[in-house]
């Protein structure tokens, strides 16, 4: 028995580790450089969001909703606002719906650019990291211009938006989109997805099979890379997604490289969506008046939307009070991260970093 385990070392990857994208922990058993067993541990940034929701007025929960996933805050703001609006039974003005779609897509681009940047960093290419942040910064500046916030914008309010878009915003956005499109298509290509060393690390590593998708309930870009054509934006349209023309990007290989490519293509699709939205954006009000404190009759409200990390959903139970009785949040990363139990086994320690990076988890969302 002792001889058998002589070569095995148990190491703790995390909770504070440069490649875990936050505070995640993996107890990894390795034999030489090969991983034999993985046990993910989560909960290091558990803030009790679901409990906080039960203690706060509907409006007061918004800043917490956008800190759930701090990389794609606006998507969660929109999701929460839609949940409360559906429960209240109010309709949002069309201009607000279009601007929400636009901001969601901007946020998706920001999230995916951060993913590309971190993928480079995880593989040891710091230049891709800096470049990804450079392009994300342009969008961050635009978000700041619209909302005043960068990471947690607090732009979406229940009943619409807090402010309209500023003057000349769409021109600035369009020129930014042109910059990002050319950078992603040319510079990133040379540095990442057409680079031999990059492909060497990514192709064939961490393949997610269809059985694993069903077993763990993975959603989002990670399954589109495995050839499952599933996107809530297309299949069960919300906001203005049924009025714009876009494709659901899929790859077939299901490895790290396919997941990378799906996100690269989704950035380009988001650019396409934003251009259409800017063209057809209607004029009018951006907000219907909703009082700060209100009551919602006993009701079950379920809303699901596509965040950059997969299908996020909120199930809200109200009981006629000023606060929700129960708010259940489905965070897509919570399911994705379970898959590492199978994905890591048999790969090298260096692949752990690549696979984890390509799954794009956010601990804030996993732990809630």
């Amino acid at each position, binding site marked *: 028995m002792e001889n058998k385990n002589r070569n095995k070392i148990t190491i703790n990857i995390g909770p504070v580790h440069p490649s875990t994208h936050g505070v995640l922990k993996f107890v990894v058993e390795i034999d030489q450089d090969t991983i034999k067993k993985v046990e993910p541990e989560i909960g290091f940034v*558990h803030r009790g969001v679901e*409990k906080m929701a039960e203690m706060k007025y509907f409006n007061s929960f918004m800043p917490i909703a956008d800190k759930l996933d701090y990389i794609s805050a606006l998507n969660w703001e929109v999701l929460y606002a839609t949940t409360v609006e559906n429960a209240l039974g109010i309709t949002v003005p069309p201009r607000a719906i279009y601007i929400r779609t636009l901001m969601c897509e901007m946020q998706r681009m920001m999230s995916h650019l951060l993913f590309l940047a971190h993928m480079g960093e995880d593989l040891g290419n710091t230049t891709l990291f800096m470049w990804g942040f450079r392009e994300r910064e342009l969008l961050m500046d635009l978000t700041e211009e619209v909302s005043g916030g960068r990471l947690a914008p607090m732009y979406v309010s229940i009943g619409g938006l807090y402010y309209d878009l500023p003057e000349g915003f769409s021109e600035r956005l369009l020129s930014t989109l042109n910059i990002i499109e050319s950078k992603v298509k040319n510079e990133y290509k040379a540095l990442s997805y057409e680079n031999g060393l990059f492909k060497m690390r990514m192709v064939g590593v961490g393949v997610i099979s269809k059985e694993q998708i*069903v077993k*763990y*309930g993975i959603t989002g870009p990670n399954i589109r890379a495995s050839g499952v054509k599933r996107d809530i934006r297309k299949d069960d349209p919300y906001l203005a997604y049924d009025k714009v023309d876009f494709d659901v990007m899929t790859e077939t290989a299901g490895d790290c490289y396919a997941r990378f490519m799906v996100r690269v293509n989704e950035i380009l699709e988001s650019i396409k969506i934003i251009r259409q939205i800017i063209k057809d954006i209607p004029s009018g009000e951006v907000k219907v008046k909703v009082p700060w404190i209100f009551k919602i009759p006993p*009701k079950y409200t379920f809303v699901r939307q596509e965040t950059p990390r997969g299908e996020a*959903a909120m*199930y809200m*139970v109200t009981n006629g009070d000023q606060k929700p009785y129960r708010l259940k949040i489905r965070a897509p990363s919570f399911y994705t991260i379970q898959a590492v139990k199978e994905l890591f086994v048999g790969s090298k320690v260096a692949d752990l970093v690549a696979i984890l990076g390509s799954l794009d988890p956010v601990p804030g969302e996993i732990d809630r």
Partner: protein
Amino acid sequence: MESSDTIKGRFPTLLSDVVSTNRNETIILLSDKTKLKTIVSEIKNHFDILFMLMVVDRPPKVFEMNYIFTSYSKNDILTLRVDIEHDDPSVDSISNLLGSADWEEREAYDMFGIDFKGHKDLRRVLLPEDWPGRPLRKDFEVTDEVRNWTGLDLKF
């Protein structure tokens, strides 16, 4: 929605309808919690994953378990609602039928203290092992024990 009609048709005595206001959603109510696994293995023929598991604490009588199922190929959402007693919060685990239920059940155990019978690895998932209390229960109070909890007693 045909799939949910099929499921209801197979177990007419156990299942009853609840009106849902949500798009694409069908809610069915299960009257007997011991038949949960039978129903879920039938649901599994029509739906792929357990999308989420929402537990609603309704003291003093019941915990309301909402199993939400979705599938990758269609937009239907099926909510299976089953009440379990507040005094004896235990129910069969479905994690060996649907793998996506694994951590969801652990989270429900973590937050509400519901005992999932037959779960292979029922530990707390988000909170530390020695955290006092089940925080999402309605009777959870922030006591001194909770306030002064430092986690220093944890054994590594």
